[in-house]
């Protein structure tokens, strides 16, 4: 039955090819439904608690997605005619930004002062750019801004060497905001270009949530543009070196392309979208598909070299490889499918997409590939070879040195794996980008010179209409604000308590002694009413107060912190309120907080996912190897590489982000291939009654080279991915590449030594039987 099917594949090559190409075409057609989502919100499922709290807070107050334009005069002082002129001009232009609802700058800050019984609320410099900036205005701006807690450390640095214009945008509520994000970013870059030309004595830096989203888009697109072609190039190079045949390389390339097209197309049919994580799918699928093809093509080449007829050579290559390639594909798919445990939707998508791609690649490798190989006029010269391969020499060495290898390799594995706990889960969105990326550079500049990009919003709920005017509540807000400002990690706090103090002073003839909170509820309410009536469009208090004035939002900006420190800050704040004002409900929200939480949560879920992958794959191995014992033994070489990989990572990097949470699952599925091949050959020899030593030699001789080659292919593929300037993908590629190499080392050094030591029992009465020749021909 099986043989007839295989024979049919070869005898009806034309039909097989046409059918599979039609099927691929139909699948690939779905790719037209694919679209790209670049915003950071894709990382959070609709059920994510932090996302829900964040969105609720945005609806209660206002959204604060932003673009910050940081301006650095080369003179080192912003308080001069030219720079202030520049700021007024940029401020006026910034209002033209698509979807903008608010612009805050040094020049449009609403400064309040008293003049007898008048309350003057006016632009610190000017609303419009077409005014003459006098020395008096410059002096006043400097005096006011450097003493105003709402401005200093945010809009202007304490030394006055940089200033910032902040644009708040309200993107329309819809699923895919990518086009809007790009539109805003493009517009603001236009402003940047315009003014860097007109004011060459100033440096400009663009950052903020919108620019981060835009970088997500640009870097993912960039990855698509560079990694996929880079990967093709690497694959071409490897294949032509390994297969030494243009036509075989072409056939393999076609399998890779059809696998990618088919899986991306199916992804499209399912109505999915591409995101920063899923753009790496083609590279991963390509890598895994190559491994399948290499096994089959080199078997065929070997058979041809032995003088076999082409049809038979292909049929036998398929028959020999069908089971191992199937099992390794399934284990790989299982590894990827456990991404479904992740809390991050794009990672789940990536897992499903690659799992599908891997199985599709398997199907194509055993249908379309033999058909193509048959149809193409591939010729391999018959060759008699009697040389002793390097693998045999290596096997000799391993057997000779087994006494030393086992303890040493065990020590190394355990030693390195022991470092794993030194890794810290840390998700800092800005650090997803390499330092040479403009956005990262701008964010780092702002962090060093003005304020960080880590933002935390705290909403304080009194649950009472007008509750924010209560003097007791205001006292708490004042104390909380003071406490926040005493924290080392806090750069800036926007708090209404400052506004209240200032108004109280203004209403009392600007008496500095009256810079304190109003002591009566009605007084506070009436001050606020008066102030609100004086503010212009876009500079109101709706971003700090809800409509019935029962809740107040305090915006805290901090240094670029790791996720652990952000969660710690959140907990400290909750603790502060539990101690000082237990009646006030506090909610915390921000993109930074969302990333801080998802990192930890996702890591826990993926640990469950990886454990399940391990159990499933081990069960599969027990069945595949038809041995409980070898299934159990396989656990060691399957787990050790990932453990070592993370151990080495701890030494060199030490920070684990979202992208790395999936590495264990993924690597389990991939490295298990080595173990499957090695153990199955070893067991086959043992079942024939050979000793452990003979079986090790046999395993090396039959699959050693194949493992070298697939490891090389996989290593190259993931190293290409590691070139991504987007660390979610780049780090994942780098660590996976490393683990794949480690896996080979474990399988070549530790595993045989382990077997030689603990699998000494002799089967079938110790009778040495000649193992059929065919088995050692797997790889030429």
């Amino acid at each position, binding site marked *: 039955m099986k043989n007839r099917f295989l024979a049919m594949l070869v005898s009806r090559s034309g039909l097989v090819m046409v059918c599979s190409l039609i099927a691929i075409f139909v699948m690939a057609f779905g790719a037209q439904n694919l679209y790209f989502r670049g915003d950071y919100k894709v990382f959070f499922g609709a059920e994510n608690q932090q996302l829900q709290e964040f969105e609720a807070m945005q*609806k209660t107050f206002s959204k604060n997605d932003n673009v910050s334009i940081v301006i650095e005069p080369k003179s080192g002082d912003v308080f001069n005619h030219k720079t202030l002129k520049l700021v007024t001009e940029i401020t006026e232009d910034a209002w*033209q930004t698509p979807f903008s609802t608010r612009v805050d700058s040094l020049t449009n800050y609403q400064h309040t002062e008293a003049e007898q019984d008048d309350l003057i*609320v006016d632009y610190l410099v000017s609303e419009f750019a077409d005014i003459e900036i006098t020395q008096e205005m410059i002096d006043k701006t400097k005096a006011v801004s450097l003493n105003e807690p709402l401005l200093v450390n945010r809009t202007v640095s304490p030394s006055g060497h940089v200033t910032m214009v902040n644009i708040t945008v309200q993107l329309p509520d819809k699923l895919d905001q990518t086009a809007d994000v790009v539109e805003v970013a493009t517009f603001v870059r236009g402003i940047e270009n315009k003014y860097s030309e007109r004011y060459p004595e100033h440096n400009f830096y663009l950052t903020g949530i919108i620019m981060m989203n835009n970088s997500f888009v640009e870097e993912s697109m960039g990855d698509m543009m560079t990694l996929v072609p880079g990967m093709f190039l690497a694959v071409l190079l490897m294949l032509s070196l390994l297969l030494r045949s243009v036509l075989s390389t072409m056939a393999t390339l076609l399998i890779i392309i059809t696998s990618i097209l088919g899986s991306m197309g199916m992804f499209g049919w399912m109505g999915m979208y591409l995101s920063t994580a899923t753009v790496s799918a083609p590279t991963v699928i390509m890598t895994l598909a190559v491994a399948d093809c290499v096994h089959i093509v080199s078997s065929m080449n070997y058979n041809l070299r032995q003088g076999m007829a082409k049809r038979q050579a292909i049929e036998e290559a398929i028959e020999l490889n069908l089971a191992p390639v199937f099992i390794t594909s399934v284990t790989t798919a299982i590894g990827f499918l456990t991404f479904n445990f992740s809390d991050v939707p794009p990672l789940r998508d990536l897992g499903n997409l690659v799992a599908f791609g891997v199985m599709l690649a398997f199907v194509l490798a055993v249908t379309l590939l033999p058909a193509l190989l048959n149809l193409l006029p591939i010729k391999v010269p018959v060759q008699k070879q009697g040389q002793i391969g390097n693998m045999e020499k290596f096997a000799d060495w391993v057997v000779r040195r087994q006494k030393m290898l086992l303890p040493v390799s065990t020590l190394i594995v355990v030693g390195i794996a022991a470092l794993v706990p030194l890794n810290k889960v840390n998700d800092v969105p800005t650090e997803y980008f390499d330092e040479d990326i403009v956005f990262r550079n701008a964010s780092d500049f702002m962090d060093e010179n003005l304020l960080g990009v880590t933002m935390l919003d705290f909403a304080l709920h009194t649950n009472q209409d*007008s509750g924010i005017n209560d003097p007791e509540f205001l006292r708490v807000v004042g104390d909380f604000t003071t406490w926040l400002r005493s924290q080392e990690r806090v750069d800036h706090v926007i708090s209404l308590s400052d506004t209240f103090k200032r108004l109280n002073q203004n209403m009392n003839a600007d008496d500095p002694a009256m810079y304190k909170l109003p002591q*009566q509820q009605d007084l506070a309410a*009436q001050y606020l009413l008066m102030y609100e*009536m004086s503010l212009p469009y876009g500079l109101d208090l709706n971003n700090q107060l809800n409509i019935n004035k029962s809740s107040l939002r305090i915006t805290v900006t901090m240094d670029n912190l790791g996720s652990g420190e952000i969660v710690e800050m959140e907990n400290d704040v909750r603790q502060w309120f539990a101690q000082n004002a237990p009646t006030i409900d506090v909610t915390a929200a921000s993109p930074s907080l969302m990333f801080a939480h998802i990192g930890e949560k996702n890591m826990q879920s993926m640990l469950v996912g990886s454990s399940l992958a391990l159990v499933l794959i081990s069960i599969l191995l027990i069945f595949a190897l038809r041995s409980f014992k070898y299934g159990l033994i396989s656990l060691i070489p399957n787990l050790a590489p990932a453990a070592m990989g993370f151990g080495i990572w701890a030494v060199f990097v030490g920070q684990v982000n979202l992208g790395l949470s999936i590495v264990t699952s993924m690597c389990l599925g991939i490295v298990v291939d080595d173990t499957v091949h090695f153990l199955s050959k070893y067991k086959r020899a043992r079942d024939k009654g050979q000793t452990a030593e003979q079986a090790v030699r046999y395993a090396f001789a039959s699959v050693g080279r194949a493992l070298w080659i697939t490891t090389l292919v996989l290593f190259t593929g993931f190293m290409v991915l590691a070139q991504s300037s987007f660390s979610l993908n780049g780090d994942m590629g780098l660590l996976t590449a490393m683990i794949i190499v480690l896996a080979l080392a474990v399988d070549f050094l530790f595993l045989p030594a382990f077997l030689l030591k603990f699998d000494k029992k002799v089967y079938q009465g110790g009778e040495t039987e000649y193992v059929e020749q065919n088995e050692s021909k797997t790889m030429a």
Partner: protein
Amino acid sequence: MLSKTNLKQWLSLVCLTSLLVMPAAHAQTAEEKGLEIAKERKARDRGWGDSESTSIMVLRNAQGQESVRQMRIRALEVQGDGDKGLTIFDEPRDVAGTAFLNFSHINEPDDQWLYLPALKRVKRIASRNKSGPFMGSEFAYEDLASFEVEKYSYKYLRDETINGEEAWVIESVPTDRYSGYSKQIVWTDKSHYRVQKIEFYDRKKSLLKTLTFADYKLYLGKYWRAHKMTMVNHQTGKSTDLLAEDIKFQVGLTDRDFDQNTLRRIR
């Protein structure tokens, strides 16, 4: 018969007739038509004298939560300049008794005073800003100020049916650069020159808000007043209903009732 001279005569005739016809065809530009409608709208609303009403503002945020403001509004018509207005806040409780007096002007910033009962003082609000939210609502102060022809330049766009009424659609561009809007699109019905709808465009020329008028009632046989004005902010998802409850005309208010010195005695 046909000669050059003849042709010349013919051509001059054609020229002459077209010259005669042209002024008729171009009797009114779109700008002129818009201005004419605005003038008629103002003219029809002249002479109401003074009025007093109770209003409720219902604020809604994107989350669907509501908040209510309550106030009494007194108004005095001023010929040749903007009207005078006095707003006394009743709800929320902590601003009850706060009184806002404004003299609206056509070509200069309005005069505004606020009496703060908690401080027992009248404070002048010295600010040119009039585009900010009124009481945290979606109405800006400038949306509530009296309509004056000179505040905008006009351009008639088209006819359209709205709320079952034939209406002119007119683009109004504020003449004051301190306005928060780049333009407004106003639907004025043909039957009574009542405004049915206004779209507000922000300074970057995006649609910001839509104001719709409903429950028009006729007072003194001449003056139409909407009892429900709904402002929806398209960018933030927030909205505000302004509900006029009890409008009385010619209740005998005079300039003395709109005096900053008597502001503190107002109940």
